[in-house]
């Protein structure tokens, strides 16, 4: 099937109006989160307006290396400096992780679709994150908490490989301390010092069941694709309507604007039609080999 043509709605906003030109942003803060993963805060040039919707990403360019898509992980209520949480997996991410305050990065964006927070109003919201997948969901959590009375129960299920690989651990603790949010955390493998849940993220559902009513739930999922597949099954088994399950997908990208075809996934371009998709759109593709 032919990919859908680019939509003007996906174009980023900015004073230059040229989505191809990276704007030089300056690293103003860097925090090591967990081994191999840091958060960078990037300040735009003076007077450059920057706003984003939760779930969107920027193309970050370390000059002389390469450009990669990285989700925005900060609070949309205070969009600048722009927060990005980056895990080192190859050359470009290594270069990003090694940046220091004062260094300059090229930024194009924001691109892509967002978590449908407006559709979530009046519903219970179940957020399921795995590993670094919590980063693209964090802006949605900030937004939900900022407008908390508009939503039903808010439940976060988060799984990581081990206790030392739990992203935003301090924030998770803070959220867990709130009376208006349920936070359940698990690790794939623990040791004697870990007193929390051990098991894959889907094993949290029996505990979470009392906190949401499936028929009235909207779910946001982000993590490794295999984790999202099995999480979707758990939600469907419980009766969450497929049109209210949203997932965020990752593919290699180049233009970030639906033009080059690098990020094609079946009939979709992840950069423009996604990265956030209603599961229903992907139901026939999800889990199929070689898509």
């Amino acid at each position: 099937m032919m990919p859908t043509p680019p939509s003007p709605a996906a174009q980023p906003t900015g004073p230059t109006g040229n989505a191809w030109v990276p704007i030089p942003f300056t690293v103003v803060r860097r925090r090591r989160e967990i081994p191999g993963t840091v958060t960078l805060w990037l300040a735009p040039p003076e007077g450059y307006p920057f706003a984003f919707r939760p779930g969107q990403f920027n193309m970050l360019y370390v000059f002389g290396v390469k450009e990669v898509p990285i989700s925005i992980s900060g609070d949309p209520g205070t969009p600048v400096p722009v927060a990005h949480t980056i895990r080192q997996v190859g050359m470009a991410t290594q270069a990003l992780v090694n940046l220091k305050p004062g260094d300059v990065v090229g930024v194009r964006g924001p691109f892509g679709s967002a978590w449908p927070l407006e559709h979530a109003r009046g519903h219970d919201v179940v957020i399921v994150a795995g590993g670094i997948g919590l980063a693209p969901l964090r802006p949605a959590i900030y937004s939900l908490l900022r407008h908390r009375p508009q939503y039903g129960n808010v439940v976060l299920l988060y799984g990581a490989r081990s206790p030392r690989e739990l992203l935003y651990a301090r924030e998770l603790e803070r959220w867990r301390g709130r009376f208006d949010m349920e936070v359940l955390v698990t690790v794939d493998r623990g040791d004697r010092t870990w007193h929390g849940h051990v098991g894959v993220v889907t094993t949290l559902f029996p505990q979470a069941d009392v906190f949401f009513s499936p028929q009235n739930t909207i779910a946001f999922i982000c993590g490794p694709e295999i984790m999202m597949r099995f999480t979707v099954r758990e939600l469907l088994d419980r009766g969450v309507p497929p049109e209210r399950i949203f997932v965020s997908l990752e593919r290699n990208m180049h233009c970030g604007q639906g033009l080059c075809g690098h990020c094609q996934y079946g009939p979709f371009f992840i950069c423009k039609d996604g990265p956030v998709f209603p599961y229903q759109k992907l139901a026939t593709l999800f889990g199929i080999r070689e898509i």
Partner: protein
Amino acid sequence: MSAETVADLVTRLEQHPFTQGFPTSALDKLTQAATLQTFQPGTFLLREGRDADHFYLLLQGQAAIELYLPERGVIRLQTVGPGDVVGWSWLLPPYRAAFDVTVINTVQAITFDAARLRRLLDDDPTLAAHFLRRLVAVIAQRVHATRLQLIDMYAVKGGRP
């Protein structure tokens, strides 16, 4: 066992996901092998390599299925809590536990004496059918979760982070 204790056990069995929906006659029978027990943190429900002489339905608290590796210490493989079951090695010879199961937070459980439970199941094929169907469902869920764990899905493709 007093009539009151039996009635209390039947009520708890009726509410536990494992035995929920069993006919009352089956629950009555199961009480012959069951007692209500509390286990303190740090104690073991099962020890690797030792007799698997008990089967537990957890009502409260949390326990961990663990494995001790000489060079890596104790690995916590999975945690179990209210509504979960512990142990199935008691069902098949040589009735030996495959893992340690350590109490993390005080556990209240319905504890079954394995030898008695086996006799009850041998004597009553209908009870055995109910019981084994549920146990297979639990084992299937655990195998499924273990497979996902084995994939090590958070690892960076092509290497460890």
